[in-house]
């Protein structure tokens, strides 16, 4: 199979397979979580659950002072990693073309030089995240194989995208095919790993915030 054939497969059947697993898998996981249900809370509410839920959706995106002071670099790196990933995913012209084909609308793209730089920063940030994980005894102890798999499948699309754009390592067509395949790998792994948090984070935050708000405590 040459580069053109591989690219055609990645843009066709390969993407379809990955998309089916991603959408069906993600819905399955989220439905499972929601359907577990919880016991009815019979106590009189001391505050607003909805207010607490909405507040927590936002506040969990902000650093907590106590945690930040302990490991500022790790927290900052977390922001860099997530924001970098979002920018390269949602602000690069060719990526926007993909979302546009699915959603029916698009948005302005950032210059590719900016994306290139952000991509490089994201790669470095991902490497830093791994270093932080390995250097911290507790985190290393808590880490499972799933954590490392999630790291690899997150790194690969950014790395291959960077290599493709800069014409490094492999001929462009082959690297583009590898890039698409790495995205498809991410899509397949996402629902069955901790990467489910790309959707479940909102549910978890809402739940925690709602519980706390109803009890009238900070969350």
């Amino acid at each position, binding site marked *: 199979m040459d580069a*053109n054939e591989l690219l055609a497969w990645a*843009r066709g059947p390969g993407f379809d397979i990955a998309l089916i697993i991603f959408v069906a898998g993600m819905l*399955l996981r989220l*439905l499972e979580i929601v*359907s577990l249900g919880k016991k009815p809370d019979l106590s009189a509410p001391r505050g607003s659950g909805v207010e607490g839920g909405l507040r927590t959706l936002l506040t969990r995106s902000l650093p907590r002072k106590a945690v930040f002071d302990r490991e500022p670099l790790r927290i900052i790196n977390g922001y860099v990693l997530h924001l970098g990933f979002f920018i390269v995913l949602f602000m690069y*012209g060719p990526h926007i*073309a*993909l979302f546009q*084909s699915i959603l029916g609308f698009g948005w302005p793209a950032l210059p590719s030089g900016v994306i290139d730089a952000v991509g490089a920063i994201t790669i470095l940030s991902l490497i830093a995240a791994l270093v932080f994980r390995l250097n911290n005894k507790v985190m290393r102890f808590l880490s499972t194989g799933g954590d490392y798999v999630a790291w690899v499948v997150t790194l690969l699309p950014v790395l291959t995208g960077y290599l493709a754009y800069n014409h490094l390592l492999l001929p462009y067509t082959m690297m*583009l095919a590898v890039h698409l395949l790495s995205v498809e790998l991410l899509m397949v792994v996402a629902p069955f790993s901790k990467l489910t948090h790309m959707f479940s984070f909102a549910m978890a935050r809402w739940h925690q915030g709602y519980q706390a708000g109803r009890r009238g405590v900070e969350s």
Partner: protein
Amino acid sequence: MDDLTLSERLRQRGVSRRGFMKFCAATASMMALPPLMIPKIAAALEKARRPSVIWLSFQECTGCTESLTRSHAPTIEGLIFDHISLDYHHTLQAAAGDGAEHAREAAMKENWGKYILVVDGSIPLGEGGNYSAIAGISNLDMLKEVAEGAAAVVSVGTCAAFGGLPMAKPNPTGAVAVSDIIKDKPIVNVPGCPPIPTVITGVLAHFLTFGRLPELDHLQRPKVFFGQSIHDRCYRRPFYERGQFAETFDDEGARKGWCLFKLGCKGPTTYNACATAKWNEGTSWPVEAGHGCIGCSEPRFWDAGGFYQALSVPHTKVGETILTAGAAGLAIGAAAAVLNRKRKAGAVENRETITVKDLTKES
């Protein structure tokens, strides 16, 4: 066939020394050779005798011949074409029937081991190769027979180089490229649908000058012409870098000449010289005319999704796939929910109360 050298013939045609040197300089720059090579090219071309060329057309549309003869006929490249001895070419030769075939056989006999074989069109292998025949000889048999005595084979056009349109799915005739059949001769691929005329003359000029084929890439294409992608040499590239794309063929972006990536341009994965050599004597080329590159010089370009779908967009029905997957996910999710609830209920029902006594008793 006369014995005039190229320079004598050019002079006879009224081409000045200056015009000839300009051609040599253009050829050298096109092939990315240093200026020092210009006199060498001139000297080699001046002395060159007309090499015999046999041109075989198989499953093709004659677009390659149209491109090579019509668009460059009045130029010096056209004259170069006059100065090869084109001994056999269905479309261009005056002879027909047995006479034409005899001309081919005679040329082969006279120049055995020295002639250049140019092929355009793919070769059908289905039904014993009987989908296409010339003078009762199947394309497959004729190719093998003529290639045997050739010094080199030039596959002109995407059909001869990579199978092209005839090989597109479902490939009813079992079409293949020349390189799938001929394994023991040097082959140079000049793909394109059609290929750029100056590329084929450049390859022939290289052969005349150096007596060998130019340096080739992994797809046996001359590196000098196919070394860089359309995208990398495109004059619209700055708009791509700025994230400025035409969304339709008549929007503001299109009028301002912005990048055509979103309109399906295959420039990033297409290796050809269109952006630099251009077409119609350097007048323009597809992207300059406002249409994205369709990738016609790449293998299997016909089966690589729609011409108007961006390279980053899957060429399948994504909307339908999402709906199907969504329905499947909901169904499996609902089933999983029922199972989980049953398990939960079962766990509650079968729960054994543990007392402090249980925890402290020794087993």
